[in-house]
């Protein structure tokens, strides 16, 4: 757990972010942004966080808007490809082959692991079977694997996804780690 290493200020920031997020959701649920919704939302958000405290999330990076857009564009493209791929496999005769591979992420923060895991589950061929927080390893179930070369390609795909995510929201140090790594093939 990275929890205890947070400073007081970071903890406060993570709570304030949570409250703002919950107020936003509350407003969206009511369908309009009014002062009444915002104030009642704030009350409920604080209550929720007191009753169900969230583990603090450390966000050490900074947003790079251009890369965020790239990440999401690529993500939705991948989602479409993945959906049609699974749909295609569903109608193809025979049983699709699969594999479970271990992919060690270069950036081991909780936030990075969670987001990569979420995104990986929605892009072609992959689903998380197990996650190891200590070593930052994701065990990924790959569907529709043809052969060993295809498998390596899929493995590299996951690392590239991580790189895109780090470029979008990672800190400079994390970005360097990703750029220095030799595991990443030329994208």
């Amino acid at each position, binding site marked *: 757990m990275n929890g205890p290493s947070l400073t007081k200020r970071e903890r406060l920031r993570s709570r304030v972010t949570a409250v703002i997020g919950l107020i936003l959701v509350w407003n969206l649920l009511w*369908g309009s942004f009014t002062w009444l919704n915002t104030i009642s939302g704030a009350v409920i958000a604080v209550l929720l966080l007191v009753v169900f405290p969230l583990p603090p999330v450390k966000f050490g990076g900074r947003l790079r808007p251009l890369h965020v857009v790239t990440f999401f564009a690529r993500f939705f493209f991948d*989602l479409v490809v993945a959906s049609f791929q699974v*749909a295609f496999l*569903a109608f193809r005769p025979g049983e699709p082959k*699969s594999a479970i591979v271990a992919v060690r992420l270069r950036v081991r923060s909780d936030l990075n692991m969670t987001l990569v895991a979420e995104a990986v589950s929605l892009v072609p061929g992959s689903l998380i079977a*197990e996650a190891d927080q200590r070593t930052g390893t994701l065990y990924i179930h790959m569907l529709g694997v043809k052969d060993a070369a295809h498998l390596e390609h899929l493995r590299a795909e996951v690392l590239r996804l991580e790189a895109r995510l780090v470029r979008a929201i990672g800190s400079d140090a994390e970005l360097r780690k990703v750029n220095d790594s030799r595991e990443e093939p030329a994208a």
Partner: protein
Amino acid sequence: MTVQGVLDAVAAVCMVTGALLSLAAGIALLRFPDLLSRMHAAAKPQVLGLLLVLTGCAIRIGTVLDITTMVLIAVFQLATAPVAAHMVGRAAYRDGQTRSDLLLTDELAPHLDEYADQTAPNPERRP
């Protein structure tokens, strides 16, 4: 063709494609050989299918009140479907419900004992 006509056509395409993807997800659920493969069907075509149906609805209905709700549905779908798939897949794998004859490699198997040892003192707490 009027603007409204174009919008209607786009909405219709979105809804039909979304419905077909959901159908494909259902067929995949029935046809795929083991649980982990089936979770792929639950996590991907189904999510995109829902997003497309929502997009179609948003274009046709077009009121802010309904669109905000749809945005929420979309966000939560994207956030929760992978988690649900992961939890079910993880439990199934540990329980030996996966068919290892379909796997080209399994890099998790050698490590699973490690995690089993880790959780051994308190086996009920983790699935």
